Every structure is written in structure tokens, then in C-alpha cells.
């Protein structure tokens, strides 16, 4: 009987009981420790093998023959041309997509019209189509045998195997980024502030620059950032339309492949390291922007 058990024994049992109860509670609240450790280990090792290791290897290979070899590889005229072309193409396609994305997002978020769902689906098309197909579409349109091929030849306009073709293909592939970043933001903000501005006598243009644009600037920057990263890194579509003319129509990703195929590992990885750095910078900027997007807005209505 309970009455006959000595005090110390009672304390000991109650202590053990409390511990058992705490452990039981712990089990109810979360998964067992073994499961937690297994899952975390799995995630970390996966990330290490598939993300961290390749990134480290890119830089290791780039600097394998020393810093001077790295700099020399980047100073090659071919490398410089590729860097220049990549920057030019990114500038063109980001600008175009900034305008297109803004217009498309505006149409979707602020107007009601039939065919809206279809438009939203169209915006996503470049994400669901293989980049190689995207490139081929432009060959079909502007190639010598393409729909506009004859007309272009007659007027002496070069699109394929030149900057315009590369820019077009890149623009197509990176189209969704800006629109995608803006649509949910603009839908959430609604049209009331614009309506207020108009009723206060502001013109459409003024309303856009003084009310709409400041409200979406962080979202816009976010879209531009991702669009830029993808534009500089695009391989498939650009590879189809570029023609791989050395020193002329090779972008950085294309040059990496060519150099690698020619066993110039240091040069290939030197260029690759630039792209990797772009990725890292993009990642940091993206994190900062996401924080601004979440924290900067007032959600309490």
C-alpha cells in the first residue's frame, strides 16, 4: 500500500515518473530524436553533395594553376567578348521584360477582361517549354528557310547568329520573372490607391509614377534580379540561335562549354566562376529584397 512505502522511495519513483512523463510529452510534441537527426543529416548531405561541392569545385578548378593563370584566362579577347556580349544581351532582355512584365502584370492585376486566365497561362509558357524548343522557334521564324527569312535577307537584316537573335531568345526564356513577381503583389494592393489619386486630380502618368511604381518597386527589383540571373546564365535557347561564332556570338555559358570541350579547364572554370559569383550575389540580394517585401508592407487593414 502507498502508505507503507518510505519517503525516499516515493521521491525516487515520482522523479522517474516525471522524467517519463516529460519524455512522453516530448514525443507527442515532436518526432523522436533519431528521426529528426536522420532527416537533418539527409538534407545536409544532399545539399553538400549537390550544391556546395560543385560550387567549391568551380573555384578550385579556376584557381588550380594559380591566380595569374585565372586572370590571364579572363583577359583573353574571346573571354572579354563573351562577357561583353552577355552583359549586352542581359541589358536588352531585362529592359524589355521590365516593360513587358510591368504591362502584363498591370493588365492582369488591375483590369477585368475575358481571356485573362489564358493570358496568365501564356505568361508561364516559357517556364514550361524546353529552352531548346524556344530557340528553335526563332530559327523557324527568322532562319534562312523560316517565315521571315526571305524578307530579312532582302532587307539585309541579320537576326539569327547575331545579337538580335540571342537577345530575342533570352527575352523569351526570361519573360515570366518580372510579371510573376508583380502579379500577386499588385493584386494584393488592389486599385484603391490609384482610384484615390485619380479622384484627387492626378493624371494617369502621374498616378503611375507617384503611386503605383513606389508601391511595387521592391517587387519589381526582385523580378529584375531573377530575370537578370537567368538571362546571363541561359544556355539552351541561346545555343540554338547563336551559331557559336568565336569572339562574336558566344555568351559566357556557351564559351564555358567550348573551352571545356577543348580541355582548357582553367579558362572554362574561370568563366564559370564569374557565373557562380553572379549566382551568389543574386542569392544575397534576393534574400535582402525578400525581407523588404515581407517587412516593408503594412498588412493590417
Amino acid at each position, binding site marked *: 500500500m502507498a502508505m507503507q512505502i518510505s519517503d525516499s522511495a516515493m521521491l525516487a519513483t515520482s522523479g522517474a515518473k516525471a522524467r517519463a512523463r516529460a519524455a512522453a510529452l516530448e514525443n507527442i510534441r515532436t518526432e523522436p530524436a533519431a528521426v529528426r537527426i536522420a532527416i537533418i543529416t539527409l538534407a545536409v548531405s544532399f545539399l553538400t553533395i549537390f550544391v556546395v561541392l560543385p560550387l567549391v569545385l568551380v573555384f578550385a578548378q579556376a584557381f588550380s594553376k594559380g591566380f595569374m593563370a585565372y586572370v590571364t584566362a579572363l583577359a583573353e579577347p574571346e573571354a572579354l567578348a563573351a562577357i561583353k556580349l552577355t552583359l549586352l544581351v542581359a541589358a536588352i532582355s531585362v529592359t524589355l521584360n521590365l516593360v513587358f512584365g510591368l504591362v502584363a502584370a498591370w493588365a492582369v492585376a488591375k483590369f477585368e477582361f475575358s481571356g485573362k486566365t489564358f493570358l496568365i497561362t501564356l505568361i508561364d509558357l516559357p517556364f514550361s517549354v524546353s529552352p531548346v524548343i524556344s530557340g528553335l522557334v526563332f530559327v523557324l521564324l527568322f532562319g534562312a528557310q523560316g517565315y521571315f527569312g526571305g524578307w530579312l535577307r532582302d532587307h539585309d537584316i541579320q537576326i539569327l547568329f547575331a545579337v538580335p537573335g540571342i537577345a530575342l531568345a533570352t527575352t523569351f526564356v526570361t519573360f515570366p520573372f518580372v510579371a510573376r513577381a508583380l502579379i500577386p503583389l499588385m493584386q494584393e494592393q488592389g486599385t*484603391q*490607391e490609384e*482610384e*484615390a*489619386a*485619380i*479622384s*484627387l*486630380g*492626378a*493624371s494617369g502618368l*502621374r498616378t503611375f509614377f*507617384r*503611386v503605383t511604381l*513606389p*508601391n511595387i518597386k521592391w517587387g519589381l527589383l526582385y523580378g529584375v534580379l531573377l530575370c537578370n540571373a537567368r538571362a546571363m546564365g541561359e544556355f539552351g535557347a541561346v545555343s540554338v540561335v547563336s551559331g557559336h561564332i568565336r569572339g562574336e556570338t558566344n555568351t559566357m555559358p556557351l564559351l564555358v562549354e567550348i573551352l571545356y570541350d577543348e580541355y582548357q579547364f582553367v579558362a572554362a572554370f574561370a568563366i564559370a566562376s564569374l557565373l557562380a559569383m553572379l549566382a551568389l550575389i543574386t542569392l544575397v540580394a534576393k534574400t535582402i529584397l525578400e525581407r523588404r517585401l515581407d517587412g516593408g*508592407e*503594412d498588412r*493590417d*487593414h
Partner: protein
Amino acid sequence: MTIEVRKLVKTFGSFKALDGVDLKVDSGELLALLGPSGSGKTTLLRIVAGLDWPDAGEVLINGEDALTHGARERHVGFVFQHYALFRHMSVFENVAFGLRVQPRAIRKDETTIRARVKELLDLVQLDWLADRYPNQLSGGQRQRIALARALAIEPRILLLDEPFGALDAKVRKELRKWLRSLHHEINVTSIFVTHDQEEALEVANRVVVMDKGRIEQIGSPDDVYETPATAFVHGFIGESIELPVQVADGVVRLGERPLPLKAEGLASGASKLFVRRHDMLVGPAGSGAFEGAVQHVRNFGPVQRAEVALSGGETIEIDAPRDRELRAGDTVGLEPRRYRIFAG
């Protein structure tokens, strides 16, 4: 400034938001558009402001056709339910916005603008918030700033769309009184939309009751409460008891029983009897037009609210003064002090 709308029709897809609305607002009036959600009141307001366009009908502001002008040219102050303050601008810049975007020819210089904004912030008693941003303000403060912003352009008319709809009960009551006195001070022809009958009756000079895109009644707050024109108005404003009755040959019947109620001038057929809860007088069993058994009693301050099962089977809620305590199980007689019968 007067506002007049004639035969206004507006449909959204298959939904008829406005179904032939005629309304005249006199100069200096503070008019309430009252109705349940979907009654078309906000649509009407937005059409007057130029933020929506009617399918048919006319809008006249001060006798001039307003439909030939967009929202930008109408000089209408509009206050939104969710404030719609420019979130990236300070309170000061919000109020100054309407002055800064004026065409260069009539735009005031910076000193005049600053003085005017200061004056408006004083008017809404929030001059100490000039440097804050909208997300640092409470709901009530935001709405007062929104009002100051709308007044900055010296609007010809002022339109308020559920201005206190997003605020809590206490702030609402304060702002109601404040809006009334502010209107008294500035005397701009104003229309405000609300679904809150108390708000409409307390603030407005005149109340327009709307339902399903039509105007049910226009009248003073007393009119719409004391002499509702339709069954809808009676049911919507104030707490009413509603009983289905039959009128035939000058006799009103509830089920089979004739009721000792006057039925002169009433059309025969199915009708509805409306009685305000507090107009149902409680007497001893056997007295009055109805008899019933008390089911529950709850006390609300000065009144007791009793659920009474009538002998015919219907259950009604009445508000009785607390001088005579009712108890569940009591059998009581009920006499409507005042009532109205509507066909349909």
C-alpha cells in the same frame, strides 16, 4: 452643389447592381445610402464619383452632365472604406497630394500648400501626425487623414464609402459625432454609404434605403424608422417581429384565427404583419391580440427580451420593460401598440 441621378442602371455580368435609380441630393445635405451588402449603394456612389460608369441613366452635378467628365475632372472628394492612403508617403504628403498634382497653371506655391495642409490637419485634429506614415496610425486616425486628403482639393461634393466600416465599435461612435459636426462646419454636399442603420439614422439629414439595386424609401431618419414604406424597410431598420398573415374581406388572420387588427384599405391576400419588438405590450393571459407562453427571458439593460411561443405555433422575440418580471413558463397576452401590414 446638388447631385441628381436619373434612371441609373448598372449590371456586372448577370448581376443587376442598379436597377433604375432616381435620386436628388440637395445642396449642403448629408445623405446616407443605407442597405445590405449587394444592394447597389457603393456602385451608386462610385458612379457619382466617376470611378464606375453606368450602363444607362444620367448623373448631374450642380445641374451639369457629369458623365462627360472622368473622375479626374469631377472635383469630387472620395473617402474609401479601407482608407487607400498612399502607403509610401507621409501623412503630410498624403494630404498635399491633391494640391501637388494640380495643373501647373493653377498649382499653388509651396508655402501656400504647406499652410493649407497644416490647416486641414488642424481641422481633423491630427496636425501632430504630419511626419508619420500611414502604417503607424490607428484605423480612426487613418480615416481622418483620408478625409483631410479628400478635402484638400476643395471638392464640390464629398462621397464616403463605408467610412467607418473597418473600425471598431467605440471609434465608430466617436467618428460619427465628429463627422456630423465637421459637416456642419464645412457644409459640403455629402453622401455616405453604410450598412449600419444606427450610423445612418444618427449622422444623416436624410436616409435612402436601398435593396437589390432599387431605392425602397427616401426620408428623414424619423420617417424611415417610424413609417417604413415597404416590408423590406421595416424588416431592415430596427428590430421587428414579422408574422405571415392572411387578409380577406377586411379581416386579418394568423393561420385560422382572426386578429382584432384594423385592416381597412388593405388588399386581400397573403401579407406580412410587422411590429417593433418594444411595441408589443405584455398583459395578463387572455388580454390582447395574441396569446403565448414565455420560453426564455434575458435581460439587456433597461429591457428584458423574451422569446414567446404563440398559440398558433410561431415563436417571436419581444422587448418588454423590466417593471414586471417575466418568467419562463408564464402565459401572457400580447397587444401590438403599433403595427404595419404589407402585402406580399
